[in-house]
């Protein structure tokens, strides 16, 4: 059994395409890129069938990475059911999106560059999910962040793309700072980074005396999760990250990387379980993020931005589930979300591709005839995310909301309301795209098979994915709740979803004038939401601007230019120069002058000797 082979294949693909991509033809690049991920996928399937039923984790020690004092960190990979689920999502959805990307990126510059980054991303993501200790996880964590940066800034010649890439990277740095502090605290507290060892150490710790340190660790780790998984207050980078190519948005910023935070919290659940404060923080932040992002999504006009806010919102749901202790429900939503959100983005990509790069909903419309496959598959995805009964999103959202219903009814009601909002804005985008009359100037056409095939597969998965019960799969790790099944929350949230769809239908298909009336009526509220509650502006005014001023005038102009450059470096030079200029006057070239100096010197020596009373013998 060699677990390291799983991430190794994409790494190989990255090396081939990264080093020789320019000399290879496009089909060859696609072969290596898609082939490496396909190999990983097949290998994962073989491995999991061999390891079945995997009730206990299977760990593999590849080599000792750090051995320093008490701290021993190995490059250890481990597979348990949680990892198995993530492996299937990452390699499966990754394979579909790689296939899709061969069609989508066909006419783009930097074809090989794109796929080498894409494969590198797969490598790091697989390292992340396979990691057996926090440090290896951190390697994957930072690696996917790097790939996200590279791919968001893929169109690096455009200012907005490189700005968005910088924003994504810097905002993630803030979260990762917390994450790193959390890791340090783990090392100090447990003297190990291995998940298994930490778990056994925690279980034997008296909770009362260690609640403080565990809360600190979990909150710091969660700070990392808010960065990577786009939660309040660090969610601002994700909508801007849509500047990257659409397959990137689908794979990295919807299906896999952004769920890394959810995965990490579930992976360290044994820590969170010991801190009620941290759990509440996770739940509340998740819930508020879900509501906030959903309301912003209502007013966005860029199709990818609508789905980006929807991703933020759905990630909020996942954290809500985690915070309520329903880890398996959160992971369930990770899986179904990976299906339908990847499909939403790929569908949006198909629309954008068919319209020659148009992303504005106001310039779409009536596309259901010219793009039938995209229309149907995107429809299924929209229904799934709305929690339409018996589609995948219905089951996972229900699992989370049921947990909320049991623990905190107020959270349930807000969550259910958000489900309605979600249905409304997703269908708003859907109706604006496919219904009515076409409002643009292109000639819409259906996408090639390499793009529609993944759409169809994902549509099937989005439809039936809910029957694959993740809570039962993860039962060995996270025990199932034993309470009686309660269908009330299921009915309430599903009806909110259907209501949202109906309202969207009334507003954007049946009576488009009504939407305009409401928009005008809402006035200031609409402007507020359209401008995303001015969060970016607030951050700019209160954090970015002061930092910039401090850096520019304090650190740069005063400390660097003034003190270090001016006083130390230039000052040292000036001092030597002026002293030298003074001493230079001695070198007059006149022998007589020199002789005078010699005589004066001798006289001084004689005088001093006489003064101190030098004597012969």
């Amino acid at each position, binding site marked *: 059994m060699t677990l390291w082979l799983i991430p190794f294949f994409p790494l190989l693909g990255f090396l081939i395409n990264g080093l020789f991509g320019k000399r290879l033809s496009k089909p060859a690049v696609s072969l290596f890129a898609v082939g490496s991920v396909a190999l990983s996928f097949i290998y994962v399937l073989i491995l999991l069938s061999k390891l079945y039923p995997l009730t206990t984790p299977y760990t593999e020690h590849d080599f000792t990475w750090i051995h320093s004092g008490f701290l021993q960190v190995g490059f250890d990979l481990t597979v348990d059911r949680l990892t198995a689920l993530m492996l299937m999502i990452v390699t499966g959805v990754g394979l579909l999106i790689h296939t899709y990307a061969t069609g989508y990126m066909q006419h783009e510059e930097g074809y090989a560059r794109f796929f080498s980054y894409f494969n590198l991303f797969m490598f790091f993501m697989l390292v992340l999910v396979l990691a057996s200790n926090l440090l290896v996880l951190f390697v994957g964590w930072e690696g996917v962040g790097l790939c996200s940066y590279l791919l968001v800034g893929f169109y690096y010649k455009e200012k907005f793309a490189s700005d968005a890439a910088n924003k994504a990277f810097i905002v993630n740095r803030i979260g990762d700072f917390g994450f790193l502090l959390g890791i340090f605290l783990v090392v100090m507290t447990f003297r190990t980074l291995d998940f298994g060892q930490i778990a056994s150490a925690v279980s034997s710790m008296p909770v009362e005396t260690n609640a403080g340190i565990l809360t600190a660790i979990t909150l710091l780790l969660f700070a990392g999760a808010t960065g990577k998984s786009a939660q309040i207050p660090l969610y601002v980078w994700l909508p801007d990250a849509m500047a990257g190519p659409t397959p990137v948005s689908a794979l990295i910023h919807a299906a896999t990387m952004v769920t890394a935070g959810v995965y990490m919290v579930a992976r360290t659940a044994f820590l969170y379980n010991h801190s009620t404060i941290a759990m509440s923080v996770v739940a509340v932040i998740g819930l508020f993020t879900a509501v906030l992002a959903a309301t912003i999504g209502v007013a966005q006009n860029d199709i990818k931005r609508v789905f980006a806010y929807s991703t933020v919102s759905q990630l909020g749901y996942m954290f809500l589930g985690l915070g309520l202790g329903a880890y398996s429900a959160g992971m369930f939503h990770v899986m179904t979300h990976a299906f339908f959100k990847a499909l939403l983005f790929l569908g949006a990509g198909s629309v954008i591709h068919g319209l020659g790069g148009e992303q504005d909903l106001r310039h779409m419309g009536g596309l259901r005839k010219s793009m039938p496959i995209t229309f149907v598959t995107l429809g299924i995805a929209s229904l799934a995310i709305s929690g339409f009964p018996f589609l995948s999103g219905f089951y996972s959202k229900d699992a989370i909301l049921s947990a909320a219903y049991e623990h905190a009814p107020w959270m349930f009601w807000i969550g259910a309301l958000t489900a309605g909002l979600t249905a409304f804005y997703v269908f708003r985008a859907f109706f604006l795209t496919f219904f009515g009359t076409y409002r643009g100037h292109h000639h819409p056409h259906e996408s090639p098979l390499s793009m529609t095939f993944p759409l169809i597969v994902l549509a099937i998965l989005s439809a039936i994915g809910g029957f694959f019960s993740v809570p039962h799969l993860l039962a060995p790790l996270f025990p199932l709740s034993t309470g009686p099944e309660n269908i009330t929350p299921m009915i309430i949230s599903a009806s909110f979803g259907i209501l949202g769809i109906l309202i969207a239908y009334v507003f954007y298909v049946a009576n488009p004038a009504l939407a305009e009336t409401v928009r005008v009526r809402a006035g200031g509220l609409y402007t507020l939401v359209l401008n995303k509650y001015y969060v970016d502006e607030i951050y700019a005014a209160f954090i970015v601007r002061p930092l910039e001023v401090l850096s520019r005038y304090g650190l740069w102009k005063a400390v660097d230019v003034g003190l270090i450059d001016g006083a130390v470096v230039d000052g040292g030079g000036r001092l030597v120069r002026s002293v030298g200029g003074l001493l230079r006057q001695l*070198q007059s070239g006149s022998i007589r002058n020199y002789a*005078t100096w010699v*005589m004066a010197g001798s006289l001084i020596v004689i005088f001093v000797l006489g003064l101190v009373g030098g004597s012969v013998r």
Partner: protein
Amino acid sequence: MHISPVPLSWYLLLSALLFALGVAGFLYRKSIITVFMSIELMLNAVNLTFISFSYKLRQIDGHIYAFFVMVVAAAEAAVGLAIILTIFKNRGTLQIDEVDSMKL
């Protein structure tokens, strides 16, 4: 036969006088040749002091030093005169004030 000896202080006075003359010549004469001769004068003034003390103290050290100084003076004369000749060939002058190009 006993001749009353010349007192040591006379020798030292003479030596100091010669040395002072040498210094003055070195500082105030304009011709390089004269300056050079002034240096020789100073060296010999020192020699005189060495010999006087050597004689007075009945020790051989002073003599040895005097010989050393003479050897150095001879070597110096050889090199110095060669330099002076070269300067005269290149510049056509022996005025010490005009030879001052070694400066910043």
